[in-house]
């Protein structure tokens, strides 16, 4: 149980479940590999035959458009056969257990599962359960991890900033409920970013978040000062119902990213968002569409990063 469940006996990546605990060399290898796939996406024929004949199942127990689509495109560009399953509507409502569903799909000769689930740890459980030749990619589990998002964010940062060792990065918003934030924090600290900040009201920060290696700020004015990268997190409307926040308006006033607040950051700072955005809640349209925004390139890079992850797993 203490062995890292993501690595095989040779220390190579077998599953991608979380960034937590992965060595820097593996992260860098994924980013370098993704670099090569950018070119593929720009060719006229956007395909390489790396995963020809492989069956990849997108198992989405939670609704998603963007993540599922980019995984699908990535798999198809690698020439794999892709099967999309949105499961919350079918078997789960008939009482079939998660592992029964997985067993049934594995019996259809799956080579890889891309899993999204509302419960933290679901991907770990599936990875523990499946036959040794099957690879599992976590596409988001509860509040725990969204490693490919974390990696594509690192890819984006490296594209625009070149290096990690001289950066200040601020993550703003609902860290408590965010699997994206957790994956970003692990990726940033592993890649050697010297200063990672989180900015949020106390109700949206988990206990002991400093122990993940971040500096905690409650005010944008202080937290954004001189940062090189601003990562905004999505704020879900339901947070207003749980007494975590009084209103979207107040949240926007104090924690929404406006052009004004962005001037506190370094002039060449980039603005990122994992999407989908709530304009006027966590981010002003003028910023989202502004020249410092790299939100759309993030999506493009996401395909290359997912191609890299899937090809590396299939090769190990």
């Amino acid at each position, binding site marked *: *149980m203490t062995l890292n469940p993501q690595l095989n006996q040779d220390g190579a990546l077998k599953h991608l479940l979380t960034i937590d605990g992965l060595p820097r060399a593996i992260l860098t290898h994924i980013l370098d590999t993704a670099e090569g796939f950018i070119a593929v996406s720009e060719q006229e024929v956007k395909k390489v035959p790396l995963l020809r004949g492989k069956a990849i199942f997108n198992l989405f127990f939670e609704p998603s458009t963007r993540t599922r689509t980019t995984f699908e495109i990535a798999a198809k560009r690698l020439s794999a056969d892709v099967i999309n399953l949105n499961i919350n509507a079918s078997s789960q409502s008939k009482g079939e257990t998660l592992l029964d569903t997985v067993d049934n799909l594995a019996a259809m000769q799956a080579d890889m599962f891309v899993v999204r689930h509302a*419960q933290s740890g679901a991907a770990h459980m599936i990875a523990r359960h499946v036959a040794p030749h099957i690879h599992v990619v976590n596409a988001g589990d*509860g509040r725990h991890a969204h490693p490919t998002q974390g990696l594509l964010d690192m890819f984006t940062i490296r594209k625009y900033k070149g290096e990690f060792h001289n950066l200040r990065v601020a993550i703003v918003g609902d860290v408590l409920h965010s699997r994206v934030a957790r994956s970003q924090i692990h990726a940033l600290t592993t890649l050697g970013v010297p200063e990672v900040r989180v900015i949020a009201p106390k109700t949206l920060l988990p*206990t002991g978040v400093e122990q993940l290696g971040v500096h905690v700020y409650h005010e944008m004015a202080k937290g954004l000062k001189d940062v090189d990268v601003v990562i905004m997190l999505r704020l879900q409307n339901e947070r207003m119902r749980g007494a975590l926040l009084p209103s979207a308006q107040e949240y926007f006033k104090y924690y929404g990213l406006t052009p004004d607040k962005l001037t506190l950051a370094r002039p060449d700072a980039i603005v990122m968002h994992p999407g989908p955005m709530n304009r006027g809640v966590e981010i002003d349209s003028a910023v989202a569409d502004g020249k410092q925004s790299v939100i759309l390139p993030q999506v493009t890079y996401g395909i290359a990063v997912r191609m890299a992850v899937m090809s590396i797993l299939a090769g190990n």
Partner: protein
Amino acid sequence: MKIHIKNGRLIDPKHGLDTHADLYIAAGKIAAIGSAPRDFHANRVIDASHCIVCPGLVDLAARLREPGFEYKATLESEMDAACAGGITSLACPPDTDPPLDEPGLVEMLKFRAQNLNQARVYPIGALTQKLEGARLTEMAELRDAGCVGFSQADAPITDTQVLVRALEYAATFGFTVWLRPQDAYLAKGGVAHDGFVATRLGLPAIPTSAETVALATILLLARETGARVHLCRLSAAESLAMVRTAKAEGLNVSCDVGINHVHLSEMDIGYFDTNHHLVPPLRGLRDRDAIRAALADGTVDALCSDHTPVDEDGKQMPFGESEPGATGLELLLPLTLKWARENGIPLSQALARITHQPAHILGLDAGHLAIGHAADICVFDPEATWIVASSILKSQGKNTPFLGYEMQGRVHATLVEGHVVFEGEENGQRRR
């Protein structure tokens, strides 16, 4: 039936007895200690060489799952497990389906248990009807049916006025109210301790304050109503400090902790291991160490198995959806011994926490060895080792954080009322 238990080391914590002596049993009672009574001809001799002979263990919390959850465990399987664990008396919480809130249900459970002729079963009645925390049960009737205390198990009483009235009513009759302190709102949705591990794994958390806020309320109301309260499964260092203070002030409270919490912390959850999904949640290392210290200094009166058999499907789920609980009847003794060994606690003091002290909380004259008293006995080899494996556990629940661990201390024989209800096979390894 006359039984002679020979060559053993007799330990009776209540009477401060720790000596090499033989035990003689006749007509279900202890007939003599040391030398045989006149004209004693044993029908059976149990050789207790290398073994400790102590009072049968008393467990304050064992879910037998009947009625209602027979797919998780049955009375037969769990009573077997209790006897294999050296337990001769056990209290079962009322969270069955339906809950133990009517005399008929309690009588049926007692009747079923008595017919098995194994360990003695003492039901804890529901404090409120259907455990809903709204209307009181017929406590006096339930007592007459066999209940030895009243509890909400893990169901909350959110309405504090109901809690006050339940305490007042119970105090009227001198009943003990068993409460596991937990504020329902502060614990809402949580599945793990609100600490670094839950933060890292993204698990919804239960803060320590969920326990301490409720505990403060209970302690204040116990003082006000004069009710006798037994606090169940305390998990946080702050809680133990509060109980220590309350006891020093003379408040009539007692408390227990579960065996898993004596040895484990949030760190043991590892990569979402659902066998570590427990109620209350495993807390920090500091809390675990405080529990061990409070057990040693007597703040904690009893150690219990908190036996909660869960079927395989209930654990084969993502952590947050999995069913909490662990099987424990067969681990109570070895895990108590492990604590004693690791903390340098004298054997007699350790055994007190699982014999006469829990018996006292139950209001039973049990958990000790005295001539003329019922011969409820546990004979165990303190050096024998064994590996916890699902094939070895008699309980229908195979779920425990200790699967694969080596345990030291193995039950050799268990007697209830002078009947041998369990005899160990000679497959344990003795440690030199």
